């Protein structure tokens, strides 16, 4: 059966880098945030102690800055070279949220309450756009505050020392927001919701079935047909081992994420 290409290898590898480094950051950071919780010292020892956990945290931070820069580079390359600046920044192929997204949110809530049909989506839904921009916000806030805390002596030359107190609060709370969001809402919206349960492999295989495109993203399907571009996206099925490895990887990440979520909830509400 014909499949539709949604993500290229570059996108998929960046997502893997993101998932791995995110898990590494949460696992090595949360023991500090929840140092009072009884699991904290245990997890720290499991990671190889305070020094090793710090090293893991910094390596994963470098990976994060790396994929972030790689993505910015890709966007510039895609818009400037591939599309030769013929790109509608508010159009359906853009990640930029616009009026249609507000309408979709409104109609989604109506659908939740049984007051209307489900809105029809194009290439990117509003919750996908939110996930996307949340990473910009998160990497920005956590990244900058993290750099302050990584190089306090350097930044202390330009800023008063209490900037590190501010950075600590931002780094810690923003990390809670990111971890809490990814391990619940992102997991549900993309993988665990009844339509996709237990996992949507598209981010690993890069492929949608034609049925999925027609059903989940009807506006994109119609647009591609109207513009005679569907052909460009048609492809044979992904090699099984790639999809299988991706699903295996995805399950591992989801399970580790749930485990860390339990620790975070314990740390936040019990200790």
């Amino acid at each position, binding site marked *: 059966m014909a499949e539709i290409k949604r993500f290229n290898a570059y996108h998929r590898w960046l997502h893997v880098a993101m998932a791995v480094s995110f898990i590494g950051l949460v696992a090595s950071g949360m*023991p*500090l*945030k929840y*140092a*009072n919780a009884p699991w*904290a*010292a245990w997890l*720290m020892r499991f990671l190889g*102690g*305070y*020094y090793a956990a710090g090293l893991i945290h910094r390596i994963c931070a470098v990976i994060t800055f790396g994929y972030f820069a790689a993505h910015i580079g890709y966007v510039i390359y895609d818009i400037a070279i591939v599309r030769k600046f013929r790109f509608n920044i508010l159009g359906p192929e853009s990640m930029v949220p616009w009026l249609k997204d507000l309408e979709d949110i409104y109609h*989604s*809530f109506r*659908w*939740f*309450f*049984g007051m209307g049909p489900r809105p029809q989506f194009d290439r990117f839904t509003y*919750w996908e756009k939110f996930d996307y921009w949340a990473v910009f916000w998160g990497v920005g806030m956590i990244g900058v505050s993290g750099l302050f*805390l990584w190089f*306090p*002596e*350097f930044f*202390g*030359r*330009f*800023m*008063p*020392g*209490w900037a*590190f*107190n*501010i950075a*600590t*609060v*931002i780094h810690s*709370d*923003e990390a*809670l*927001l990111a971890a*809490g*969001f990814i391990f*619940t*809402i992102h997991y*549900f*919206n993309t993988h665990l*919701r*009844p*339509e996709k349960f237990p996992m949507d492999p598209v981010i690993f295989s890069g492929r949608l079935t034609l049925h999925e495109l027609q059903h989940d993203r009807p506006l994109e399907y119609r647009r591609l047909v109207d513009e005679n571009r569907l052909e460009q996206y048609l492809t044979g099925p992904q090699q099984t081992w790639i999809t299988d490895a991706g699903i295996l990887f995805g399950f591992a990440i989801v399970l580790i994420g749930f485990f860390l979520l339990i620790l975070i909830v314990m740390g936040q509400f019990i200790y």
Partner: protein
Amino acid sequence: MKDLTLVFLLSCFLFASPAAAKDSCYDCHGQKGMKPYVDKSAFEQSAHGHLACTKCHFDVSGYPHGKVSKVNCGACHFIGTEGAPKEQAQQYKLSVHNRVTAVGNATLPTCQTCHGSHYIYPSADTRSSTNRQKIPTLCSQCHPREFEVYKNSIHGKQLLEDNNPAAPTCFQCHMEHLTPPTASNAWQLALIKQCGDCHSEELKTYRKTYHGKVTKLGYVTVAKCSDCHGAHDILMLNDPDSTLSRKNILKTCQKCHPAATPGFTKFYAHAEEKDRAKYPVLYYTFLFMTVLLLGTFAFFFTHTFLWAYRSLKERMNKKGGE
């Protein structure tokens, strides 16, 4: 020969009962100038006043007695079966003061070095050699340099000059009987809690910082209380000689952060994000983050639960229809 028999018979009579035996000890040792001289009334008011001399001097069984060996307190306080408190001796066995752990250093203190021998009183008693007012001087016999520094510190002045009953003596930090090696990680971490026993607000706010969290997890490489505030030399923050005074703070931070600048020292090592008056920027940052988190989670959890409900319902309806 006849004389010796007489002495033997006499001593059997004398030592037949402990009370009688004690009285007979005073026949000699109650005389001033005798070595050792024992002040009967002072001894009898002491913690051991109810015991017979031979309870401790068990190598004495009559008169005349030969050389009397040094009393082993552990006979009662370590292995004895009677009501004598034991944990102190058990702790001492682990301490750096114990000659066995310190490989036979004969200058190290035994029980008697601190407690004396015949006049041992509860430490609350001002006659006790371990009464809190006397502790610094007691320790100074072996640690004179530490005493010189301590006596000018805020803790030393509070204790020795102002008789403040809450001021720490050497014991509060060094744990009288346990006296762990000062290089031991366990002791350095325990010390933070010791400081927090009196300075509980400061401990609470310290625990919110990176320093406090790393030590909480059992690692000592970051700043602990004494790294910034000093130990024996601790002074009030407003004292110009304090390690944290305006002229000294940079040097103190630079112990761990060699490239620290004057700006760097404006770090709040005991910040409280809920204190708006004292830390307004921190307060509003925390407030903003809290609102952001609650807002985002509230919206998306509602969204997710409603979505799950609707999706499941639609799927069930579809199955029912088929």
